C-alpha cells in the first residue's frame, strides 16, 4: 500500500461511563500499563507486516474512551516508537480527544509539546441540565475553563464536540450552548444529534419511560438552527455533523468519508486497507491475550465485494456536503432524481428532477440538499437500492 493513510489509536479507558455512550470503554484503570505495552506490541506487528507496514501517516487520531486519562509520560511511551515505526508526514494532523476534567487539563501543555497539534474537547453542552442528563462529569465552568487552558497550552486547532436533541433540551438552551461555544472561536465544531443507542443506560431509561426522547420535529429544528447559526458565524458545514473555519476540516474524519485506508489499533478499533475491513476484539482482557500471542487482536474480517464498495462510496460520499463526483456514480443520476422525486398537491410524483428537493446536481457532483441532509438515511436507502451488483 502506498500513499498516506490514517492511523487511529483507541484508548478504552474512562473515569466514568456516560449514560449515552456506546463506544467501548472500561473504568478499570489498573489495566492501563499492560494495555500500553500491548498497544505498542500491536503497533509493531502492523508496522512490520503488510498491508500497513512502512506506510506514512498523514493523520493520527488518539481517541477513546478518554485518551487524556494517559499522562504525558504514557503518551510519550506510545508516540516515540510510533513515529519510529510509521512515517508521520511533515504536517501530520495529530488529534487528541480530551474531557474537560481538571486532572487532565494540567497536562495540556505537555501534550502539546509531544507534537499533538489538534485537541478535540468533549464539551457536549454548556447547560447544566443537559450535562446532568448526559451524566457528564464536568460542569459548565469546567467546560469553559478547559477551552481557555487548551488555548493557553498552545492548541490553535481546537475542536469542540457538542450534542443536541438531548431529552428535555429546548431550542433556547441549544442556542445558548452554540453561542457559548462560538464565543471561544474554536476552529472546528462537531455537533451531533443524540443517538439513543441500544444497550446504554439512556436507552433503558427511555424504554422504561423515565426519559422522553426528543421529538422529531424539534430535532429537525435544532439541526437547522445549528446549520444557520454556525454558517452565520463563518463556519462551513462539510459533513452532516461537522463544521469548521476555512482550512480546519478534520483530515482524519475526511479520510473515513473518502474511503482512504486506515489502521485502527486498540480494542474495538476498525481498519480498512481499501479492500478488506477488520476489527479488533471489543474487550481489554481478550485484547491483551490476543496481542501477546498473535501480535494482533482481530475479531473478524470482511472483504468488500464490488457492490459493497459501491454502497460504501454512496453512504460515505453523501455524508460530505460536497457529495459524490458524477463520474463513477454507481447509478444513473436521472434515476436517483426520479427515485427521490417529490409529489405535487394531488399526490402525484413530479416528473422533472428540478422538483427534486433532496439532491442537487452541480459542479459535476451529486450532493444532498439541506433537506436531503436531514433525510440522509432515507436518501441512502433509496439510492443504494439503485446499485446493481455488476
Amino acid at each position, binding site marked *: 500500500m502506498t500513499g498516506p493513510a490514517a492511523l487511529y489509536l483507541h484508548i478504552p479507558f474512562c473515569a466514568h461511563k456516560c449514560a449515552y455512550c456506546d463506544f467501548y470503554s472500561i473504568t478499570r484503570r489498573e489495566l492501563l500499563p499492560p494495555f500500553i505495552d500491548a498497544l505498542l506490541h500491536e503497533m509493531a506487528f502492523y508496522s512490520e507486516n503488510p498491508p500497513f507496514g512502512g506506510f506514512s501517516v498523514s493523520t493520527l487520531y488518539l481517541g477513546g474512551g478518554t485518551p487524556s486519562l494517559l499522562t504525558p509520560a504514557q503518551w510519550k511511551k506510545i508516540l516515540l516508537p510510533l513515529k519510529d515505526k510509521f512515517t508521520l508526514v511533515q504536517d501530520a494532523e495529530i488529534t487528541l480527544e480530551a474531557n474537560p476534567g481538571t486532572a487532565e487539563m494540567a497536562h495540556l501543555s505537555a501534550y502539546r509539546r509531544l507534537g499533538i497539534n489538534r485537541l478535540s474537547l468533549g464539551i457536549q453542552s454548556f447547560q447544566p441540565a443537559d450535562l446532568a442528563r448526559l451524566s457528564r462529569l464536568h460542569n459548565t465552568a469546567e467546560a469553559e475553563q478547559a477551552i481557555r487552558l487548551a488555548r493557553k497550552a498552545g492548541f490553535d486547532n481546537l475542536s469542540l464536540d457538542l450534542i443536541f436533541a438531548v431529552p428535555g433540551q429546548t431550542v433556547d438552551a441549544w442556542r445558548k450552548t452554540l453561542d457559548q461555544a462560538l464565543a471561544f472561536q474554536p476552529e472546528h465544531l462537531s455537533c*451531533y444529534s443524540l443517538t439513543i443507542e441500544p444497550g446504554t443506560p439512556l436507552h433503558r431509561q427511555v424504554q422504561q419511560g423515565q426519559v422522553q426522547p426528543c421529538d422529531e420535529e424539534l430535532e429537525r429544528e435544532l439541526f437547522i438552527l445549528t446549520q444557520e447559526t454556525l454558517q452565520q458565524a463563518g463556519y462551513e458545514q462539510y459533513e452532516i455533523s461537522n463544521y469548521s473555519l476555512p482550512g480546519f476540516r478534520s483530515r482524519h474524519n475526511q479520510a*473515513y468519508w473518502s474511503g482512504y485506508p486506515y489502521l485502527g489499533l486498540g480494542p*474495538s478499533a*476498525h481498519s480498512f486497507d481499501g479492500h478488506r475491513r477488520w476489527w479488533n476484539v471489543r474487550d481489554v482482557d481478550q485484547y491483551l491475550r490476543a496481542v501477546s500471542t498473535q501480535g494482533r487482536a482481530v475479531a473478524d474480517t470482511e472483504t468488500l465485494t464490488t457492490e459493497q464498495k459501491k*454502497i460504501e462510496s454512496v*453512504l460515505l460520499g453523501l455524508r460530505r456536503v460536497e457529495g459524490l463526483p458524477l463520474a463513477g456514480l454507481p447509478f444513473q443520476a436521472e434515476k436517483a432524481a426520479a427515485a427521490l422525486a*417529490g409529489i405535487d398537491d394531488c399526490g402525484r410524483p413530479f416528473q422533472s428532477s428540478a422538483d427534486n428537493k433532496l439532491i442537487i446536481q452541480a459542479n459535476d457532483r451529486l450532493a444532498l440538499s439541506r433537506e436531503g441532509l436531514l433525510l440522509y438515511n432515507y436518501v441512502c*436507502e433509496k439510492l443504494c437500492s439503485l446499485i446493481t451488483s455488476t
Partner: protein
Amino acid sequence: MAKNTIRNFCIIAHIDHGKSTLADRLLEATGAVTRFEMKDQVLDSMDLERERGITIKMHPITMEYKARDGVTYLLNLIDTPGHVDFTYEVSRSLAACEGALLVVDASQGIEAQTVSNLYLAIDNNLEIIPIINKIDLPNIDVDAIKHQIIDLLGCKEQEILLASAKAGTGIEEVLEAVVQRIPPPHGEVDAPTRALIFDSVFNSYRGAVAHVRVMQGRLYPDQMIKFHSTGRTFQVQEVGILRLKQIKKDRLEAGETGYLISGVKEVRDTKVGDTIIDAAFPDTEPLPGYRDIKPMVFSGLFPSVAENYEDLRSALEKLKLNDSSLFYEPETSLALGFGFRCGFLGLLHMEIVQERLEREYNLDLVSTVPNVEYHVFTTRGEMLVMDNPANLPPANDIDHVEEPYIRSSILTPSEYIGAIMSISRERRGIYINTEYIDSQRVNMHYEFPLAEVIFDFYDKLKSVTRGYASFDYEFLGFREGPVVKLDILLNGEAVDALSVIVHRDKAYEWGRRVCEKLRDLIPRQQYEVAIQAAVGGKVIARETVRPLRKNVTAKCYGGDITRKRKLLEKQKEGKKRMKQLGHVEIPQEAFLAVLKAD
C-alpha cells in the same frame, strides 16, 4: 386371491390424534416395512406433512398379516385426509372400504372432524372399530372417552380397543379386530368391471397413477377401459398392489385395491370418485357419489420478483399434475404485476399449495386476501361468476349479489356455548340447533356465509374454547347477501390487489383495520401517504403515514461504516420485496397482514 382373506379399511382420526403413528406400528407389526425402511410417519409423502406432524393424505398400503386363526390375510389400508377441506376425498376413500378404525386421542376426546367423517363412514355402511389411542399419557380419563364413543356409536364398552401407537401397545389387538370384525369385500368377479378411483398421483415417468378399489369385475393389462365421467378410453398398461413400492400383478379383481397405469398423462383425467368401466361394456352404471370438485376459496398468487413469473407458472403446472383440485388462471394486477388467480378447496389447501410452491419450488410469493366466489346479477339480467374482487362491475351495474353459504357443525364442551354463539353472531352465523352428545359435549349447527369463516374463524373458535372446539362444514348453496366492494387507495390511487368484497355492515370495520395495518407497515417517506378505504367512491376510513422530517445517522466513523452498510444491504434486499404502487412502496407483507387477526 380369495376375497374372504382381504380386508379393506381406513383410519378415521382428527389431526394429531395419532393416525400416522398407528399406521407406522401396523406396518411394522405386519412386516410391511422393514426396520431399515422405517422412519416416522412413513406413509406421509410430503416433508410438509412430516414436519407439521399432520397428515394430509397417506399412501395406501397392503399388508400381510398372519392372524391367530392361522390364516394369512391381506389388509389394505386406505387413507382419509384429515381435514375439512378434503371432505369429498374422504367420502371416496370410505367408499373403497368395508371398515374403519376410529382413532380417538385419550387426552382430547372426539372432535368435530372425526364425527363428520364417522357419519360418512356409517353412511357407507362401514364396520367401525373404535380405538382409544395414547393411553400411556398421564392424567387422562379413559372412561370418559369410552362414554363419548359409546354415546356416539352405540357400541359396547368391550368393543373399544385401547392402544398406544407410540409405545406400541395394543397393536396386535387392532390387527385381530380388523380381521375378525371387518367383513371381507363382496362383488362379482365375473360381472362387468366397475372400479372406484379413490386417489390418483402423478409420476413423472408413468403419468397419472390411479389408486383404485375394484368393486366388481377385474382390471388387467391390455384391457380397454373407460373413465366414466370424462368418457375417455385408455388401454391398461399395468396394474398391481401397493406396498411401500408398487408390486406388479397380472390382474386386480373385485374386492382388491391397488394401482392402475393406463397412459393417462394428468391426474385431472383420473378424477377421484370416478368409476373405471370396461370399454367393452360402455353402458355399465357408474358407482354412486361422484362429484366434480370445485374450488371454494380464491386468492391471487404473484411472484415477489417479476422475473419469477415463468417459474411460478411451471411450478403450478407441476403441482396441478398431482392435485386435480388446484385451479389457476393468469391474472394481472396493477399492484402486483403478472401472477395467477388460484382456486383452492379451502384455507388449509391454500396454505399447503403456497407452502409447497415456496418450499419445493423455491419461490417467493405474494398472495392476496383470499375470497369466495360470488354470483353477481347485473341490472341487465346477467349472472357473472366472480372470484376476483378487482373484476367486480361498478356498483351501479349490480342488481344483487349472491354469496356461498355453508352448513357447519361445531363440537364443543358445553361450557363454551355462549362464547361460540357470540363469535358466530359476529360472523353472520344462522343458528340452527344444538345437539347434546353427552352431558358435557354438544354439537352446534350453524349456517354461515363461507366468506365469514375462511379468514380466521377457526383460530378464533380455538381461542375462545381454549382449543377444545372443533369445526366442520359442507357447502350449502348461494344466497343473496348485502355485500359491497371495498377499495383501498394510496394517495388517491386504488390498489387493486387490496380490494375485497365484504358485507355492507362490516365494510367500515374492515376498512378501518386495513388502513391501520397499512399505516404501520408502509415505511415513512419524504412525503405524506394518505391511506383511504372507500366503498363505491365514498371514503369510509382514513389513515396517514407521516412524512419523514429528520432521519439521519449522526456519526459515521471507522467502526460505523460496516454497520451502516449492512443495514443498507438489508434494506436493499427488503426493497426487492417491496411493491411500488405509483410512488408509494408497500412491503409485500401488507397484502397478507390485512388478514391477520388483531
